[in-house]
């Protein structure tokens, strides 16, 4: 399909030269939800050489109003988003090498993916992973484009190591009460505008047009139409532990304990075992069938208990839906799975 990028390279900001650069670049997208999916589709259509997309969740019916890569069938089958995204993106552009990875993005496993990555695009939904992306960006000198949205609000900023302030400079303490899609809802246009701003910045970076980058943090409310651009120059801190002279990348300190995490506003607790486990789903099905109805695909096994629903992933992670209480989730986990 010789002409497929003709209109894109006709645009003076890209040009033939810019398109050539885009075709050589590799992008890592963290999160395959609304922002990750929208960015991924645009970047794959734009002809990026390689797109890797990572996500820990599976497709749910409540995603479908805004997460453009997924279908009703994906939700019915509980397909992990990374897998469903890979299938859809492959159908969109065979020029691009596409890799979907179903995993819980953490410092160690994301770092192992960075070898040939030119740019990281944030499609995540929490600050814990954004602080990890930020430290990895500084450590490996890879730019990243933050995006966040909730309600009718969106924001984006392009972090350039060695040039702009980093996330740690901007937010010295990690927010624990961010405005999320679960607490404030979300409308698809807020997603699409945020993702469009991110992809625009990505195209500038990938095409080698660094001088055209926005350099300001952009915030907007798509419902009320109240945009705000903030000059971030004053945010840079010389003693920043992530980008300052004496840096120790505080978000990259690994934890090897079993980790329990309440997924905010979702009535769900995630349990991540201390060591990678690989479940044999057919024998696990035999065990869990005694407790409730089991459904499975090659990636996720779900079991409908009386008051809860368990989702067990191949990598050993378990989501306990129906509770926000860590202790309760732990009890169920130990009773049924360990």
């Amino acid at each position, binding site marked *: 399909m010789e002409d497929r990028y003709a209109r894109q390279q006709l645009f003076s900001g890209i040009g033939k030269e810019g398109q050539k650069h885009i075709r050589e670049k590799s992008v890592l997208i963290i*999160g395959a*939800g*609304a*922002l*990750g999916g929208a960015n991924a589709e645009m970047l794959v259509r734009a002809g990026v050489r390689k797109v890797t997309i990572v996500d820990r969740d599976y497709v749910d019916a409540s995603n479908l109003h805004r997460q453009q890569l997924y279908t009703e069938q994906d939700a019915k089958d509980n397909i992990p988003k990374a897998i469903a995204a890979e299938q859809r993106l492959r159908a969109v552009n065979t020029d691009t090498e596409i890799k979907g990875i179903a995993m819980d993005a953490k410092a160690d496993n994301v770092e192992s993916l960075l070898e040939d990555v030119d740019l990281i695009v*944030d*499609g*995540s*939904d*929490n*600050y814990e992973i954004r602080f990890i992306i930020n430290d990895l960006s500084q450590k490996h000198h890879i730019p990243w484009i933050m*995006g*966040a*949205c*909730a*309600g009718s*609000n*969106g*924001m984006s900023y392009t972090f350039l190591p060695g040039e702009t*302030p980093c996330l740690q400079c*901007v*937010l010295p*303490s990690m*927010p*624990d*009460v*961010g*405005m*999320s*899609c*679960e607490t*404030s809802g*979300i409308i698809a246009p807020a997603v699409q505008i*945020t993702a469009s701003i991110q992809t625009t910045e990505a195209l500038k970076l990938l095409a080698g047009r660094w001088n055209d980058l926005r350099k300001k*943090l952009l*915030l907007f*409310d798509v419902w*009320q139409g*109240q945009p*705000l*651009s*903030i*000059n*971030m*120059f*004053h*945010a840079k801190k010389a003693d920043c532990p992530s980008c300052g002279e004496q840096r120790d990348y505080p978000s990259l300190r690994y934890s090897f304990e079993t980790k329990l995490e309440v997924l905010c506003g979702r009535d769900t607790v995630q349990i991540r075992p201390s060591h990678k486990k690989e479940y044999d789903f057919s024998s696990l099905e035999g065990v869990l069938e005694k407790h409730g109805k089991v459904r499975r695909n090659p990636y996720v096994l779900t079991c409908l208990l009386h008051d809860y629903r368990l989702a067990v992933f191949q990598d050993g992670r378990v989501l306990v839906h129906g509770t926000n209480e860590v202790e309760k989730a732990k009890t169920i986990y130990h009773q049924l799975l360990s």
Partner: protein
Amino acid sequence: MIKVLFFARLQEEIGKESMEVEKAGVSVSDLKKWLAATHHLPHMTQTMAAINENYANDDDIVNEGDTIAFIPPVSGG
């Protein structure tokens, strides 16, 4: 007189987009504390601030005629 703008969830919590207050000369962190106490805003310490569209640190001073915007973290995606 300074003008205070509220964004995202803060706007919902406080019920308006902006207000004017006689607080010229105070630091950003003191203004945050005052707003938290007088308007029952529990998360002001995690809120980013910008004075006249420039990022502001907690010890920056808000001067007469300035517009200060408070932007709470948006986390969804």
